[in-house]
């Protein structure tokens, strides 16, 4: 049963190829249904493989399927192969599941777009690349998937490339990603040099012979790659701009799947991080800092998608915090529940944006709950989940992270706790401004102008995913309840992957209950703040300071101190160095050849006697040489 795992990435890839050639012929909406079908089929296969893996005994849950040898050069031997183990199957399961729901949603969302088939071409390719990433059994294949999702991110952010903002946002995402990828590559070189291989099994088996400084270097370089992909400090500004893409893209790529690849990588290299605690500490600290930074910025944003984008940055910070302290299962748990509720929130935001004639400013919305009940209820569930209100999924997953955080370092816990409060607060602000309060938009019936809106719940293709994700967000926490050792299914499922490297806290039942209560209190504090501040009023300048709206001016600083000087250097180089030095050298060389020719040409007099003289002179020279050698 495990052998069919090759279908998991291959089905979306087949969908990509089919839609590439026949997408336009299939048209709207059949292309979308085909794409959704391939991803759903992939999800079904994933469940089958998952079951097959589950049937194996706990200590034997690892299966490798090698397709073929990819590189065989000297000592470097890389195969294309898939690794089926609890971690990769967990990732594959929620990637395919959430992707299938978002594909379904996109059929409705992109209905009026003239490039409808192209959208699904890219989406399917993305899913295939992401699955390659999580199922790979070696670092190079993971990197292939890594690059693949980066490329698809570029395509999809710039889907409406006629818009300048969209195409430059796509470029920005690519550039920031690339910086991380450069570090990733150096890490790959280092891994190969130190261990002689790139596949997980061999590398992790040989770690004992690698010195700690090298391991710290590898860990930090791989984390730098993750920083680029998962939008942590300092490579995060691209994620906010990436909201230029269509909302399903934001939901799928920039919330549920691609950006989680970095956290997945950290969990996958847990043997390395275990042996390089310095690197792990860096991961944790950067993650915590990013969590707080993202949360603060989200408090003052007016674009609904930007609120969610900074929220994603913040939640990813939590995941890295968990991975950095060694609580890998908590990181994966948070990743899973985050996929559910963040996708839910984005898809809900998409419905709202559709209803508001593509306006994304929360300040021009309000009182939509009556008009869009399904959207409002699911968004509400999403808010409570991300806020960490019991008993929604976020409560359990974020609680797991905070629990381990406190056991590791109370300082980190404090940062996390503050972030948790802010999370509940800013998302509450978003919900209240959009769905509650006064109606700040013009009803379509009353006036006939273009700014008038006619909000309503979307069709079933868009509402069904919302409902499903809502259910998952609400109930997803049940897979890993800490209250009893029999209920932490996810932890036990993932434990073979992490083994003894997992961080162990030593809180008894009493400690667990205390933390539960504290988490609940923090969540309710945030909720209460939101209601108090934004329940009825829509303008509160004191709570939306400019520096937060401008994201602490960090992006401005990047532009001012890095982008502009680089552009100036480029202009200078092209006009001076290129035009004068390089072109001058090349043209000068040509001039030299021509000038030499002009002079050497004079040797060709045309007279045979001159040529005979040249011949004789040559003979004399050769004889002279022979003379010198002979004597």
């Amino acid at each position, binding site marked *: 049963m495990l052998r069919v795992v090759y279908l998991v990435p291959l089905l979306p890839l087949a969908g990509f190829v089919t839609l590439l050639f026949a997408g336009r012929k299939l048209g709207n909406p059949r292309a979308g249904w085909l794409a959704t079908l391939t991803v759903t089929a992939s999800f079904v296969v994933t469940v089958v493989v998952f079951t097959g893996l589950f049937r194996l005994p706990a200590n034997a849950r690892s299966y490798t399927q090698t397709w073929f040898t990819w590189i065989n050069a000297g000592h470097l031997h890389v195969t294309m192969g898939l690794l089926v183990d609890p971690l990769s199957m967990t990732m594959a399961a929620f990637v395919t599941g959430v992707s299938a729901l978002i594909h379904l949603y996109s059929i409705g969302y992109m209905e009026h777009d003239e490039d409808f088939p192209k959208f699904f071409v890219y989406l399917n390719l993305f899913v295939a690349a992401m699955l390659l990433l999580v199922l790979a059994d070696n670092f190079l294949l993971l990197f292939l998937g890594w690059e693949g999702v980066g490329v698809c991110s570029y395509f999809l952010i710039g889907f409406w490339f006629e818009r300048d903002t969209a195409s430059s946002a796509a470029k920005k995402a690519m550039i920031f990603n690339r910086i991380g990828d450069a570090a990733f590559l150096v890490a790959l070189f280092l891994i190969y040099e130190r261990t002689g291989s790139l596949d997980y099994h061999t590398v992790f088996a040989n770690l004992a012979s690698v010195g700690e400084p090298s391991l710290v270097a590898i860990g930090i370089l791989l984390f730098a790659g993750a920083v680029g992909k998962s939008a942590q400090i300092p490579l995060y500004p691209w994620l906010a701009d990436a909201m230029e893409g269509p909302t399903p893209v934001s939901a799928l790529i920039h919330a549920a799947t691609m950006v989680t690849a970095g956290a997945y990588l950290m969990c996958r290299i847990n043997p390395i991080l275990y042996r390089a605690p310095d690197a792990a500490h860096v991961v944790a600290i950067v993650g915590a800092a990013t969590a707080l930074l993202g949360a603060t910025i989200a408090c003052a944003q007016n674009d609904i998608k930007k609120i969610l984008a900074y929220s994603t940055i913040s939640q990813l910070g939590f995941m890295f915090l968990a991975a950095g302290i060694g609580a890998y299962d908590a990181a994966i748990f948070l990743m899973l529940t985050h996929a559910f509720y963040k996708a839910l929130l984005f898809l809900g935001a998409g419905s709202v944006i559709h209803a508001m004639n593509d306006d994304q400013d929360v300040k021009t919305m309000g009182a939509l709950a009556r008009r869009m009940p399904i959207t409002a209820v699911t968004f509400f569930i999403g808010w409570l989940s991300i806020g960490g209100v019991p008993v929604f999924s976020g409560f359990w997953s974020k609680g797991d992270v905070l629990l381990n955080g406190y056991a590791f370092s109370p300082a980190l816990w404090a940062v996390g706790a503050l972030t948790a409060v802010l999370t509940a607060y800013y998302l509450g602000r978003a919900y209240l401004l959009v769905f509650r309060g006064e109606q700040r938009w013009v009803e379509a019936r009353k006036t006939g102008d273009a700014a008038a809106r006619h909000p309503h719940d979307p069709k079933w293709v868009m509402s069904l995913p919302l409902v499903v994700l809502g259910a998952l967000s609400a109930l997803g926490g049940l897979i890993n309840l800490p209250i009893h050792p029999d209920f932490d299914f996810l932890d036990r499922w993932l434990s073979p992957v992490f083994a003894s490297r997992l961080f162990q806290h030593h809180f008894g039942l009493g400690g667990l209950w205390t933390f539960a209560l504290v988490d609940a209190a923090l969540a309710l504090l945030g909720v209460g703040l939101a209601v108090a501040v934004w329940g009825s009023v829509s303008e509160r300048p004191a709570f939306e300071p400019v520096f937060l709206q401008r994201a602490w001016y960090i992006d401005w600083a990047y532009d001012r101190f890095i982008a502009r000087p680089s552009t100036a250097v480029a202009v200078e180089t092209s006009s001076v160095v290129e035009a004068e030095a390089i072109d001058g050298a090349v043209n000068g060389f040509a001039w030299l050849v021509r000038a030499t020719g002009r002079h050497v*040409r004079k040797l*060709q*007099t*045309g007279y045979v*006697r001159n040529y*005979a*003289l040249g011949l004789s002179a040559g003979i004399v020279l050769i004889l002279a040489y022979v003379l010198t050698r002979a004597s």
Partner: protein
Amino acid sequence: MSISASWYLTLAAVLFTIGAIGLLIRRNVLVMFMCVELMLNAANLTFVTFARRLNDIAGQTAVFFVLVVAAAEVVVGLGIIVSIYRRRPGATADDIHGMKG
């Protein structure tokens, strides 16, 4: 006094040089051809000298063949010169300089 082979060889070298210089200096095509004959004779003299020194008849055989080939060469060369002269009477070696760069 005794005449050794080196005298003959010196003489042959001198003849060859005179022939070479003549080839380079004269413009009349037929005189140039005659200088070539001079050079061939110098070579013949060298061959015969070495045949004598090494006590081997092969040197003289070589001269025999050189003689035959020189004759054939003169025949064909003069035929060419005649053809050239038909088109351009009074042509010299300097009249063909079309390949001037």
